[in-house]
């Protein structure tokens, strides 16, 4: 079956994009668009927010309401948009450094509130834009520009992190499993609450080169070889899990969504605040004084 034309979602006048040959970011961006396309969302009712870094340049290429913000703060800008216009579908495109280092604070709090944001992390385990410094998802002992002898800082498992913080829909996939990404995007958007997609993508230019992986195709093959679905993962021993990672729908547990709770709080209080005759009397008195 031929793939549907998704060029209507792109600002083609902004092309060519800045991503390096072999970069996986285009695959992630395309998968997000295919998910949106399948849902048949009105382009004008979708807001795409991004931070700073390679991944965050995506917002500039997409023809929705877009807001390209500052490093680490995409989630806070997005929170403002969602609070003001809860009817919008709000998608946050971010990177591992953007959302879990400089913006890590916002990630846990947005998840805690269970506000209806759909976060797609382009997780390439490195700061690509500034030349390959290690990020909070760089595996232990891997080489980075700031870790020439191997990374000393244990990485975050972003799915576990957001689960603990309170996200209600969490999934992980890779650029090798591109069609799976679109399905998770659909379910994330359908989830009324904080949805978090950890998408493993390849940076052959910095991460691959420094860690002696020959090229982008080899990086994709590594994703294929090291990814395990939930069923396979569940029967692996701790030893067998070394160097492998789980992909799939990792968490799906709805609970009240923040903007809805907020609205119902307002409504409850408006009811309560119906002025009683006594309070009116008090107000008149205080004005006179």
């Amino acid at each position, binding site marked *: 079956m031929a793939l549907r034309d998704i060029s209507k979602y792109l600002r083609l006048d902004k092309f060519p994009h800045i991503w390096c040959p072999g970069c996986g970011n285009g695959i992630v961006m395309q998968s997000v668009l295919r998910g949106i396309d399948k849902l048949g969302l009105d382009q004008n009712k979708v807001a795409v927010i991004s931070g*700073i870094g390679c991944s965050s340049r995506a917002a500039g290429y997409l023809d929705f309401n877009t807001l*390209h913000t*500052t*490093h*680490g703060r995409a989630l806070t800008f997005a929170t403002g948009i969602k609070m003001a216009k809860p009817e919008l579908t709000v998608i946050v495109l971010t990177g591992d450094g953007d959302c879990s*280092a*400089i913006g*890590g604070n916002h990630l846990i709090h947005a998840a805690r509130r269970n506000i209806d944001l759909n976060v797609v992390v382009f997780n390439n385990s490195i*700061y690509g*834009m*500034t*030349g390959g*410094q*290690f990020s*909070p998802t760089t595996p232990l002992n891997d080489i980075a*520009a*700031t*870790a*020439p*002898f191997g990374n000393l800082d244990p990485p975050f498992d972003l799915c576990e992190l957001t689960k603990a913080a309170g996200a209600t829909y969490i999934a992980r996939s890779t650029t090798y499993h591109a069609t799976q990404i679109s399905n998770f995007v659909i379910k994330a958007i359908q989830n009324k609450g904080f949805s978090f997609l950890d998408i493993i993508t390849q940076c052959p230019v910095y991460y691959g080169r420094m860690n002696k992986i020959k090229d982008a195709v080899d990086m994709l093959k590594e994703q294929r070889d090291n990814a395990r679905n939930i069923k396979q993962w569940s029967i692996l021993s701790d030893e067998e899990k070394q160097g492998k990672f789980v992909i799939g729908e990792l968490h799906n547990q709805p609970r009240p969504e923040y903007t809805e709770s907020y609205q119902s709080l307002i409504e409850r209080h408006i009811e309560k605040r119906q002025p009683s005759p006594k309070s009116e009397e008090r107000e008149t008195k205080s004005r006179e004084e």
Partner: protein
Amino acid sequence: MPTLAKTGNEAMAEAMRQINPDVVAAYPITPATEVVMIFSQFVADGLVDTEYVAAESEHSAMSACVGAASAGCRVMTGTSSQGLQLMSEILPIVSALRQPIVLCEVNRALSGPINIHCDHSDTMAVRDFGWIQIFSENAQEAYDSVLQAVLIAEDEKVRLPAMVTTDGFIISHCMEKIETMEDDAAKKYIGEHKVKNSILNLEKPITLGSLDLQDYYFEHKMPVVEAMKQAKDVIVKVGKEFGQKFGREYGLLEEYKLADAEFAVVALGSTCGTTKAVVDELRNNGLKAGLLKVRVFRPFPGEEIAQALSKVKAAVILDRSDTYCNQGGQLYTEIRSAMYEAAKKPLLANYIYGLGGREISLEGIRQIYKQLQECQSSGQVIHFGVRE
């Protein structure tokens, strides 16, 4: 003295290597990343004794710097634009704690819109935080000023943080021939870090940063006021001694063919190099053109500028940033204020130029001198080089 080909970022990193600070904490940001990246390679290669902290944001980086300085260390870092903005909360604390941290700052336009190229809006935005601010015309000056900044900042009379700036991409990424010191000479020049107060001195434990309300807060700001006054003389002294030792003398200002000039441009940073070329050309054509380069913006050399401009007919103040106060850019408003008491005042105009890296060419500077000759009254603020 070794002569090397270095970019501005490489020159600053080289100065950092020779300074060999105890701690560097940083976070990557274009176009300053290279400064600390190259330095981190020196750390990895064992060429320095520095503890390198790869922080999770600039806010954390500057906080770690303050922690290290509180523990008695010589501390340096580097950043740019949004990174400097994110450090903003900590910057006035550094000066209040009298910590001589030296920061390599690469001037880059502030968001928004997002831009990675040069203007001075980032450095100007933090001008009132009690930091010494030194601008560089080229990579050589950046190298020399970073070394001098350590001596200035750590001087007993000063004890204030200092930032040395280059212009993003124009200096930071362009390769030039620079002269560096021999390692031994640099080491001797920089000297040992003398710690005045440290929380780690068990003989004399101290408290830093405690709550200070209406009772003493005001009094505790006064030492910063006083130190900034003292800093002026110290900068001149350090610049002069640097000249005696290494042949390149520095001051608060640099006058270029200004002594008999009728028309002057006043500028900061790399644009001064472009202006010098135009001044030479105009002089050949018989016009008495001159340049006043402002090297040090904090402390502000107001009296010196007023003196230097006292003989010119008219001057254009070039600002690579705007205050949005409707009265012109930072350099202009401060110079105009400094001229208030001056007995002889030239006509002053303000040209705001080059925002977000908009090119300023030789032709652009020629036009500015041409328009300056037609200047009839003071107070014009012109946004130069902007498309309609």
